[in-house]
């Protein structure tokens, strides 16, 4: 086991050492940087070195105390699944009226189901709702999401679910959520949803050309942009206040003309006042485009503008929403590091939420999964069913995914910044193996190193988080 866990790194402006024991980094001299590099590579012993002693005396680089890699919530799993389920999503249908190319159900992804005419029956929905209410006694709120396919294809079922829940819940706040492609929105559906406080998320990828590249109707292959915009305009006229709460999600794909997309969300008179989220297309989407370079040039340029705005060189008004939203996690990591929190003997990397507790996804057939992003055809992710209840062993395995690489994690400099959940691990067999997970470790190395560089450079240019 390593005695001290650290990572030396350098930027053009300085040399640094990231100290895992305090989850922070600090500036060092060039000479010290070389010493730390030698120590890291095992060419020098820490006990012989004065540089280490200097920092030890100053209270940095505490000895590695991590004895076990275990998720802190593992000991309370039975309690959580019995009484603390937070959010349930119902897959009301596996069908959709669109056939988006990058959709995880489009048939181009390994280990994902495809669209099907299967729908959730009222009996299953009712059982799911009862199951959720019985397992969320200690949760503050009741939060229910409707998901598909396209959930608005099953609007009558949604109505029934809403009235059932409202009748069964007296004290707790209730939140309903729906993710829709927006093509089936009508006045009647919208007014029902806003009356019942729905949080509505519409998938819209940008301007017409970009959106229609992928998001097309199943029936005739035509783009869905015009239909969605017509619906939104119609609802804006009839419900000018309520429609403001609707949010949009744009999926970014490498072949998209990002500059046009950003322009659209920044200035379009129908959309620009709404909250917009940006997400990357699911890994595994294979696009045969030679536009990828251009996509990344534009994206990186936007990121650069964001950093310039953070250090006060340009106004944040010139920075696209896309950059502000997708880079929020850099600042989040920075604030986590600012806490300088101590390590404990038993630790686990970030990433896994408690499967089935933070989110519980119920399929049309009443099978339980941790969320809508996990594969429905890999049994590993099936954490139970409405009939048999939760399968605790499977939940525990997924939660405690750090155990797969426990020896590596104990000594890994990234332990406190790493974020890997079981759903991200691609594997072929029955359960993921260490080698499968280590592919994600490589990716984490790249991401975290990049974050550290960004934060260090921002500091060099006087970024002040307080302002």
């Amino acid at each position, binding site marked *: 086991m390593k005695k001290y866990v650290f990572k030396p790194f350098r930027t053009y402006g300085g040399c640094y050492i990231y100290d895992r024991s305090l989850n922070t980094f600090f500036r060092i001299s060039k000479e010290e940087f070389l010493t730390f590099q030698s120590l890291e590579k095992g060419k020098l012993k820490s006990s012989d070195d004065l540089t280490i002693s200097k920092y030890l005396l100053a209270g940095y680089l505490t000895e590695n105390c991590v004895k076990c890699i275990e998720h802190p*919530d593992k000991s*309370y799993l039975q309690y959580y699944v019995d009484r603390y389920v937070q959010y349930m999503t119902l897959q009301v249908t596996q069908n959709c009226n669109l056939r988006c190319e990058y959709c995880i159900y489009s048939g181009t992804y390994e280990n994902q189901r495809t669209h099907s005419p299967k729908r959730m029956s009222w009996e299953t929905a009712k059982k799911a709702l009862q199951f959720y209410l019985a397992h969320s006694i*200690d949760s503050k709120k009741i939060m229910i999401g409707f998901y598909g396919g396209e959930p608005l294809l099953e609007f009558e079922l949604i109505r029934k679910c809403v009235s059932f829940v409202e009748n*069964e819940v*007296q*004290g707790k706040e209730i939140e309903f959520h729906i993710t829709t492609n927006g093509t089936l929105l009508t006045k009647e559906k919208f007014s029902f949803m806003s009356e019942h406080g729905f949080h509505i998320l519409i998938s819209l990828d940008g301007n017409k050309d970009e959106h229609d590249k992928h998001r097309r109707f199943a029936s005739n292959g035509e783009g869905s942009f015009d239909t969605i915009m017509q619906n939104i305009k119609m609802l804006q006229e009839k419900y000018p206040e309520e429609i403001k709460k609707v949010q949009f999600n744009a999926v970014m794909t490498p072949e998209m003309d990002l500059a046009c997309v950003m322009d659209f969300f920044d200035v379009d008179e129908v959309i620009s006042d709404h909250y917009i989220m940006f997400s990357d297309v699911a890994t595994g989407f294979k696009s045969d485009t030679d536009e990828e370079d251009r996509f990344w040039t534009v994206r990186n340029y936007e990121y650069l503008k964001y950093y310039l705005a953070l250090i006060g060189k340009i106004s944040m008004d010139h920075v696209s929403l896309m950059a502000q939203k997708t880079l929020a996690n850099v600042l989040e990591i920075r604030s986590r590091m600012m*806490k300088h929190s101590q390590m404990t003997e038993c630790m686990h990397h970030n990433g896994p939420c408690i499967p089935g507790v933070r989110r519980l996804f119920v399929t049309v057939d009443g099978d339980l999964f941790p969320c809508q992003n996990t594969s429905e055809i890999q049994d590993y992710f099936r954490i139970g069913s409405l009939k048999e209840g939760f399968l605790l062993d499977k939940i525990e395995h997924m939660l405690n995914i750090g155990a797969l690489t426990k020896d590596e994690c104990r000594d890994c400099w990234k332990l406190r910044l790493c974020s890997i959940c079981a759903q991200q691990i691609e594997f072929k067999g029955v359960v993921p193996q260490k080698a499968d997970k280590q592919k994600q470790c490589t990716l984490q190395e790249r991401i975290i190193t990049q974050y550290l560089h960004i934060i260090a450079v921002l500091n060099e240019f006087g970024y002040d988080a307080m302002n």
Partner: protein
Amino acid sequence: MSNETVSFFPLTHDIETLLDFTELLTVQVGDIGTYKEDSKKLRRITDNIRINKNYAPNEKEIVVVPPDADIEKLLRYPIPILKAHEEERQILLSQRHAVKLGISGSHVKKIEKLPESFTFQKDYRKLFEFPVPVFGVLGTEESCGKFRLQLSLKKYFDDHSIKTAFVCSNHLGALSGMYTIPEELFGNTYTFSEKVSYLNQYLSNIYFEMKPDMIVLGVPGGVFSLQDNENDYYSEFAHVFSHVLKFDAVSLNLFRNEERTDEILDAIDSYMAYIFTTSVYMYGVSSMIAKRINDSDEYEMLDTHSYVTEKQPCVRRETGSWIVDTGDMRGIYCVLDHMVDEMQDGIHSL
């Protein structure tokens, strides 16, 4: 209040705790009602208490709204309380709840037990020194299971017929005969030094009313703040009490999922010694856990009481303090036996 019948709405965590100690109650328990979505909770309550899915206390029952009832929930479903109010039935609830629910009248009272005749003398500053041992019940944070421990202590001292004045940090303690801390002290009405003086006078009143051999004092709130965004009023009560009187010993409740290595407990020992001039006689490992809410900096306190399969073994540290599971009655009795023995032998500072 004794031999009267009370009914509870809604069923909260503190009521569930209280009902684990029915033998201590000075009142009869009638109906217990709660929100429809929580009806599964009702099944856990012991057989000797009547449970009605549709809350319907009979006319003679006093309606008690527990202080830990979530006000937002009460406002969403106030029907049972408003009905009782309309019928002018006796209602016990906190001032905060009464104001939010907009109910008042001679039938509306606070849940409390105060000494017979107490009036605060604002300009009288001399502090009374208590001639009997004082044991403080503290917790690292708000909601870390002190109420359960205070009920266990009450049971012990009752069982051993030790004449003890209990002042409970939770107003529900009044239903098992414990004095409570006046609600007005929880607000901004008084300055820090006035609160010190007030509490000293208040406790001395209890002392002269009861002439106990010992005082057990539950301190509201916590001594540290776990939350970045909340400050637990900067542990105000713990600081106030450390000036009100000299604790001879204290217990400190820890969350079950809190680290408790020797290094950490040693650091807590020194902190308590410096800040509160007292040693920790007993660390209580509570069934409460502090759960970080998703990725935020906030925590939610959850009770795993009925899920604890492995009790924290009752051990004495080299420093002399004990670690005991607050759900382990035998462990608590064992620690208190030692404490009482040491008190009699004069070994411990008690």
